[in-house]
């Protein structure tokens, strides 16, 4: 069911709250994906 918004403030509070949580999830997800993507790379010598 759609949330009813009475003011612009209500709308922004809702959508931005959801978005900020989503961004956190995406950042963590992208880091995990990077680890998966590079998991079998040959290790570079750093010395």
């Amino acid at each position, binding site marked *: 069911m759609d949330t009813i918004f009475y003011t612009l403030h209500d*709308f922004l509070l*809702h*959508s931005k709250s*959801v*978005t900020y949580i989503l961004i956190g999830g995406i950042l963590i*997800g992208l880091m995990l994906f*990077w680890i*998966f993507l590079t998991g*079998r790379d040959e290790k570079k010598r750093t010395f």
Partner: protein
Amino acid sequence: MSQETAYANKSIFTPFNIIASIIIIAGLIVTVLRFTKGLGTVTNLDNNNPWGIWIGFDLLCGVALAAGGYVTSAACYIFGLKRYHSAVRPAILTAFLGYALVVLALHYDVGRPWRLPYPVFISQGTTSLLFEVGLCVFLYLSVLFIEYSPAALEWLGLKKIRNLIVRLTLVLTIFGVILSTLHQSSLGALFMIAPSKLHPLWYSNYLTVYFFISSMFSGLSMVIFEGSLAHRYFHNKMDETHLKESKDVALGFGKAASFIMMGYVGVKLIGISIDNNWHYLTTGWGAWYLLELIGFAAIPSFMYAIAVREKNLRLVRWAALISVIGVVLNRFNVSLVAFNWQLTSAERYFPSWSEIVISLFVVTIGLVVYRFIVTRMPILHEHPDYQHDN
């Protein structure tokens, strides 16, 4: 047997030549109709749908798929990834032909070809996005021509001017990246003027970002896809370096494309969230949107990742093909399918056969010119006089 004798003995009636000839003849007939009888005779365009597949496919897809030029040259010359050097010339050639054909196709939509220089030199509409796109495409096509020219000059034996242009490579690459950043994103911005016409799932304040990010993985995928075709059909034109590096290029570009595509999926989700458009995902339009986002972005991203982990060249090539189709689907959705979504089906646009013929005509010219250049000029191999010179 010398190469010339081999050419002479080969029949010109190959399946490719026959099909290409038919398409070109049909295209020329429609061209005459278009420029003598006007848009109304050959297109299904109307006041509701002023842009059809000549813009949605020839221009939007053409520019996105030609992004391999700036991506590859930036990787090689700006980020110093010299192991991808063998991919630069084919990518630049594809980009140059892609942009040249975009300009050619634009003539069909705009008409009056002799007025093409007007927006840049005579009457600049500096407040218009179309002016920005036009200027960028004009400048970038010129840059691509100069970037491509060393191959033609080596073929013609003009050493001095070739050496002069090669010295400009870094500057041209920087120009190319800046100009591409500007107009790839601006093509998305063109649709921001119509928030009420474009379906909310595709309309976003981030359309510019979507178009720019998707151009990056589109370019990378196109380089892989084109490389696999070149490997198959022009294997004899490739030298040892190109053959040796082709696997590294595919896997390296696949890795980059995989991560960029996953980032793209993330940014698209943020776009849905910030406009609170989640409820549209449960509709028919939502299913179509999810097919585009998951089927043609998230899944090929995973395919790339698995292929890179397992060094599976075949899977990389399949992922590249799906990604290329995904970008074409996205541009079609934004410019045609989800555009005017509220109109009745009778008022919706579907291209006429002659519009499709012109699009096929443009692509065929690209293939014919590409084949002409690749079989003669040092694109897939290094010219013997300039080896170890790049």
